[in-house]
């Protein structure tokens, strides 16, 4: 066991000290931050240069142009002749908007026109439409018998929530049933796990594989194997590279939000407005979703009430288990091919298929988190690392969680055993084209 740690430590240290590792680890969050900034910059420079708009209102609805104003758009009313304005608006404004006479209150759709030297973006058109539309609506309401308050009360939204949960909250108990928040948390956990598994497979699994190939090509493996058992070498490698992965993920998990927060902080208002969401819109969104304060606090309550003491450790167990299984498989692949990188790329595809299947299963499973597909997905070891964590927010039966973990652990041992048997033969095999049949035979070679 001691030797496994020695090997793991070497694998870990040589990688973590590499300049490429340090750069990739630090630059990725910085890159994400820069990407956000760039997106914000382009969005800003693209659509939201300040525009001045001249309004010729023949309907008489707009009394005061300033009610139309928004952060980037300034409106001015003009009474001049429309034809004259068409020729001369560009002396004082970017855009001329002409509102024709309006008398029929029952009309739902209204055509107004604009004149502009430049083509207008969809965003600008929408903003003008919204601003003018709001005034039309208000005018219609004011001309009717309905008060503004009555009109506002017509806006309706239904929130369907788990009754048991609501009862528990009403009774002042800690909620035990899960509601919508569970779906959100489940989706996030499943998605996160799926993302991490992908990382594991394509980055760290590949790292294990390349490391095995390197030792084989280097011929150092013969010296290593005369000092340690092949399985020790393989396990050490898997553990060491796993440590590298954890380090990298941990740094990203800390740095990325920190950098994003920093970007937001320094370019705060800009970023919010330029990512396309204005404070107004934000208000609209929240009111549409009816996120009243009591609502939010109930979400928070429910979020807190999720069984994190179960979710976090089980998530970690499945992360390690999933990594271990896939990394072992990659070690076996690395050992059975020589120096042909192209061949190794091909062999990665079949190994990644279960992950793709798990991703496809994720949505149906979240829709029916205790259905048959969900149960199957939680028990099948190549898929369970993605499916089981996603289900944790939906109070799956404990026996399923336990059984799933037991199967995962047995699978880890099983796959390590298989991989180990392929590995110990593969690393000493040179200059021979290996096929699947050959590899199967290796499983049954004596030590």
């Amino acid at each position, binding site marked *: 066991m001691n*030797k496994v740690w*020695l*090997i793991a430590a*070497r694998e870990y240290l*040589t990688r973590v000290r590499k300049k490429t590792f340090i750069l990739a680890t630090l630059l990725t969050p910085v890159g994400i931050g820069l990407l956000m900034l760039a997106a914000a910059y382009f969005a800003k420079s693209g659509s939201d240069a300040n525009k001045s708009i001249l309004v010729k209102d023949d309907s008489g609805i707009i009394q005061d142009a300033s009610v139309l104003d928004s952060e980037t758009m300034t409106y001015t009313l003009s009474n001049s002749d429309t034809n004259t304005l068409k020729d001369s608006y560009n002396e004082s404004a970017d855009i001329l908007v002409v509102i024709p006479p309006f008398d029929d209150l029952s009309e739902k759709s209204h055509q107004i026109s604009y004149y502009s030297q430049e083509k207008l973006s969809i965003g600008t058109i929408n903003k003008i439409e919204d601003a003018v539309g709001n005034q039309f609506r208000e005018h219609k309401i004011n001309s009717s018998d309905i008060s503004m308050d009555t009109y506002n009360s017509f806006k309706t939204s239904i929130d369907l929530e788990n009754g048991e949960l609501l009862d528990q909250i009403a009774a002042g108990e800690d909620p035990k049933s899960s509601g919508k928040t569970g779906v959100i948390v489940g989706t996030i956990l499943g998605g996160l796990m799926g993302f991490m598994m992908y990382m594991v497979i394509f980055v760290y699994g590949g790292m294990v594989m390349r490391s095995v190939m390197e*030792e084989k090509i*280097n*011929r*150092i*493996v*013969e*010296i*290593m*194997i*005369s*000092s*340690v058992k092949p399985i020790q070498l393989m396990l050490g490698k898997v553990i060491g590279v796993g440590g590298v992965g954890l380090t990298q993920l941990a740094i990203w998990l800390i740095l990325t939000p920190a950098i994003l927060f920093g970007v937001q902080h320094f370019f705060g208002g800009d970023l919010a407005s330029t990512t396309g969401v204005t404070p107004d819109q934000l208000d609209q969104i929240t009111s549409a979703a009816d996120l009243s304060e009591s609502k939010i606090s109930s979400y928070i309550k429910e979020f807190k009430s999720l069984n994190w003491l179960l979710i976090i450790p089980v998530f970690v167990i499945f992360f390690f288990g999933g990594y271990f299984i896939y990394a072992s498989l990659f070690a076996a692949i690395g050992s059975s091919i020589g120096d042909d990188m192209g061949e190794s790329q091909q062999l990665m595809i079949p190994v990644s298929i279960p992950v793709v299947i798990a991703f496809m299963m994720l949505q149906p499973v979240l829709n029916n988190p205790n259905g048959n597909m969900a149960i199957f997905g939680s028990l099948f070891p190549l898929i369970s690392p993605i499916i089981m964590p996603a289900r944790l927010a939906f109070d799956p039966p404990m026996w399923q969680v336990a059984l799933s973990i037991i199967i995962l652990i047995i699978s880890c041992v099983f796959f390590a055993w298989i991989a180990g048997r392929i590995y110990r033969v593969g690393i*000493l095999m040179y200059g021979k084209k290996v096929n699947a049949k050959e590899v199967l*035979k290796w499983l049954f070679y*004596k*030590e």
Partner: protein
Amino acid sequence: MSVLSIQNVVKEYAGHKAVNNVSFDVPKGSIFGLLGPNGAGKTSLIRIITRITAADSGRILLNGKDISETLIREVGYLPEERGLYKKMMVGEQLVYLAQLKGLTKLEAASEIKYWLEKFDIKDWWTKKIEELSKGMQQKVQFIATVLHKPSLIILDEPFTGLDPVNTNLMKEEIYRLNAEGTSIIFSTHRMEQVEEICKDIVLIEKGQVILTGAVGEVKEQFKENLFKINTTQPLKSGSSAYAILNSDEEGTTIKISNDATSNDVLSEVIQSGNVVKSYAEVLPSLNDIFIKQINRI
């Protein structure tokens, strides 16, 4: 007593017997030549001794104990295909390999210092392997093989790629280690090196032992009663005691008949009035024995 005793070892790969019922003993304190043509099963056998693979059947005793019960650090192995971690520093790498053999970091460091000084490469500790030439890497590899003070060292073609100066340096180290009591198995095709270095040999072909023993005994066993005689006048042919094979400036090579002795030959030559300047037995070279034995199979 033997340091290593191989008893009826068999190893089969996919229906082909790479090692077929091999038995021989390596005497303690010997420099032992493991000989055989390419593909004879030397590497398979070495891999079994170094526990890289296991035998299908048979026993291997190291210092009288079954090899699976002995410590890994009792054996040092320099494989024919050398390899080191290219990106690692020399010191780091040697410490790591020594630790895997069971040394502590401290023990390893002091041993490594000793060896680096010995090879006059003290300042290499922080050099990366990839910065070294092949011959230099070989020195590092040699240190990795011996620094844990194994009782048995297995060297597979240790001198390939070395210049004459470094070959000599390494040879001296091998002799010195041997004088200190380390037994050495030396696997090579280079017969002149075997002749120069080895005390005992085993010859393997097609997975089987063809012959084994002390170098002198083997030569004795395969000698063909050949002698080289130098005389003032040419030897007469047609003698019943000997037959002339060839002659050159150094003399004439003769083969003595089975029922005659050197005394018979010499008295016959002297009685014929010829004067003997020198007379010596010609023992077969290991190379000749090797080729003859291999061709016989």
